[in-house]
């Protein structure tokens, strides 16, 4: 049989596919492909200092004291309603949280609706009611909107884009570029709930669970953390791409390394079970109501205590620390005591074959 094996020097691969000609689904997954698209297409065209900062919201200096945060978030989700939330709640929380991640108090939102011909108005009413409830909870007002209708089949029910405007607290300086060696990394609770809840709600997995999306407005939780310490360096919500992708973004922006302790990262049993079955890793599954807080070690305990006594922060925990090397990398200390890299999500998260 030996002779039938070709010379291994001839063993080869196919040429690379960079997907630079057309949009594929991986461009929307929040991982490295999304980043490359943003950098190559958007940033190169729009170049300005607020955009180039690369945070969840842009910061605008009005005068010596006043700073505004402005952010935008487009929402597409299937199904429109899922356990724990719906597209309306997502759209409000998305922009509220983007503002909060800069240490801003979100005040006003605008909302753009793209509606598909044939959408029941009752469905739209339910979504809008859910937006109002979420806005009330977050303490923001939706002050302007726009509506467009597209032909049946040209959209998936409805899409919502929200813009959020907030006022940045005085005395705070928060950015993904501010992580410092020695800082503690705090996570506000269990990861992966949103991604798995939405996947389960699509009904394609053949299993059911009681899992709820974690979608929530985090501005009050973050206000409590900032009340405990204005020295917080980084705030970011690990949405698409999950915790690992978010920490990789921060590590790259701050030019530091991050070490995580696998045993400290909370993951619910239902999320773990779904990930094991599908070949997913909870570190890459989306969250919509969690925040990563990076804070100087000496303030970590009081920030943690403040978060634990705030709504949506009850399960907060220190999961790791910022280190000098290796730069722009996230390392994971496994339960077994070994160390591995937790890289950024590449393209789309795909279920494994077996």
């Amino acid at each position, binding site marked *: 049989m030996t002779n039938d094996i070709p010379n291994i020097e001839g063993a080869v691969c196919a040429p690379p*596919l960079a997907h630079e000609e*057309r949009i594929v689904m991986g461009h929307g997954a929040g*991982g490295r492909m999304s980043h490359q698209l943003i950098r190559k297409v958007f940033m190169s065209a729009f170049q300005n200092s607020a955009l180039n900062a690369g945070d969840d919201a842009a910061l605008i200096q009005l005068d010596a004291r006043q700073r505004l945060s402005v952010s935008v978030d487009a929402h597409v989700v299937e199904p429109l309603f899922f356990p724990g939330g719906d597209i309306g709640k997502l759209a409000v929380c998305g922009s509220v949280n983007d503002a909060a991640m800069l240490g801003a108090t979100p005040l006003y939102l605008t909302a753009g609706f793209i509606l598909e011909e044939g959408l029941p108005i009752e469905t739209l009413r339910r979504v809008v009611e859910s937006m109002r409830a979420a806005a009330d909870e977050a303490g923001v007002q939706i002050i302007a909107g726009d509506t467009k209708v597209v032909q049946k089949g040209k959209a998936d029910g409805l899409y919502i884009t929200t813009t959020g405007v907030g006022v940045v607290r005085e005395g705070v300086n928060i950015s993904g570029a501010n992580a410092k060696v020695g800082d503690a990394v705090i996570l506000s609770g269990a990861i992966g709930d949103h991604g798995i809840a939405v996947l389960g709600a699509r009904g394609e997995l053949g299993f059911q669970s009681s899992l709820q999306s974690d979608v929530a407005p985090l501005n009050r939780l973050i206000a409590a953390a900032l009340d405990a310490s204005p020295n917080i360096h980084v705030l970011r919500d690990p949405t698409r791409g999950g915790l690992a992708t978010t920490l990789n973004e921060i590590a790259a922006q701050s030019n530091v390394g991050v070490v995580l302790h696998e045993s400290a990262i909370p993951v619910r049993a239902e999320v*773990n079970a779904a990930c094991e079955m599908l070949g997913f890793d909870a570190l890459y599954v989306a969250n919509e109501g969690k925040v990563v807080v990076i804070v100087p070690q000496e303030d970590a305990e009081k920030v943690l205590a403040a978060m634990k006594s705030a709504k949506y922060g009850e399960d907060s925990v220190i999961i790791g620390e910022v280190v000098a090397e290796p730069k722009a990398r996230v390392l994971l200390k496994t339960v077994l005591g070994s160390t591995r890299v937790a890289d950024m999500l590449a393209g789309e998260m795909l*279920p494994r074959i077996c």
Partner: protein
Amino acid sequence: MKYVSEYRDAALVKNVIEEIRRTVTHPWTLMEICGGQTHSIVRHGIDQLLPPEIELVHGPGCPVCVTPLELIDKALSIASRPDVIFCSYGDMLRVPGSSRDLFSVKAQGGDVRVVYSPLDAVTLAQKNPDKQVVFFAIGFETTAPPNVMSVLQARRLGLKNFSILVSHVRVPPAIDAILSSPQNRVQGFLLAGHVNAVMGYWEYPSLAEKFKLPMVVTGFEPLDLVQGILQTVQLLEANQARVANAYQRAVTFEGLKPAQEAINTVFMECDRKWRGIGMIPMSGWGLRPEFDEFNAEKRFAVEAIHAEESPLCIAGQILQGLKKPHHCPAFGKQCTPESPLGATMVSSEGACAAYYRYGRAEELA
């Protein structure tokens, strides 16, 4: 998580590692045959915990990685047809063909869907009588039972619009090929426990005898893996060339007879090209002629498609355990999961992707 966390218990794993340390007196090179095991080893960093005498090399057991280029090209051709709904396991979408991948076909309007089971594709065929539904049936022995069940189910339902594109491969001929290579370094095998759950391990004693080395049926969780390694090392140190079973909770000698019968009803052994390795005689399964009506290659007349790969990366050497992913000059530079040069980087079970995602910092430096 019950039935999983017990097998990831750090203290139990450390005990077995200690036992391996006490047992080993020589350097040994072991190959884990299955990509799922490679993934688990790198994810949990098990190779870092082993004594330096033991080297693990990664085998060709990733069905996504070894699916030959021309089969991918055939899939792309079929998936591009307007009358077709093309169904696939998720990680096949990223595998590059000669010029495109299934993501590109989807972006250009092809109806490409990720399914979790081939039976979902059969259901799609029932629901879409005006469309041809094609399932990309790849895999080792593990996925053969569900894949053949889809054909049997489609025949039972009298479906005329369902077919499968088959690229099935089998472990024993691959082991024979690796061990027959003059460059072979492998001294013991961790057998792919999930393959053995279906097939049993009656096919392996003759291989162990022929090549005079031990083989141990091994599971996928950290404790399973270190148990498999321990038993292999014990056999090596005792100079015993035989097959042992370290995955008894899932595997019997005979395997699952009804599954094997279903496979034999629908499939027959055939020659198969392995991407990065080449033709291995009788190493695959294809549809029996009596199931021609479910054979997508015949239904869509793509049998004539041929493709040659251009020499760019060392996937073939990695798949044969001759090189490790970070030995490749392209690794992590020109070749990354979102822009893969080779199939081993594409699949989440591929050794390169596992190294890239879970690799140690020094290997990525």
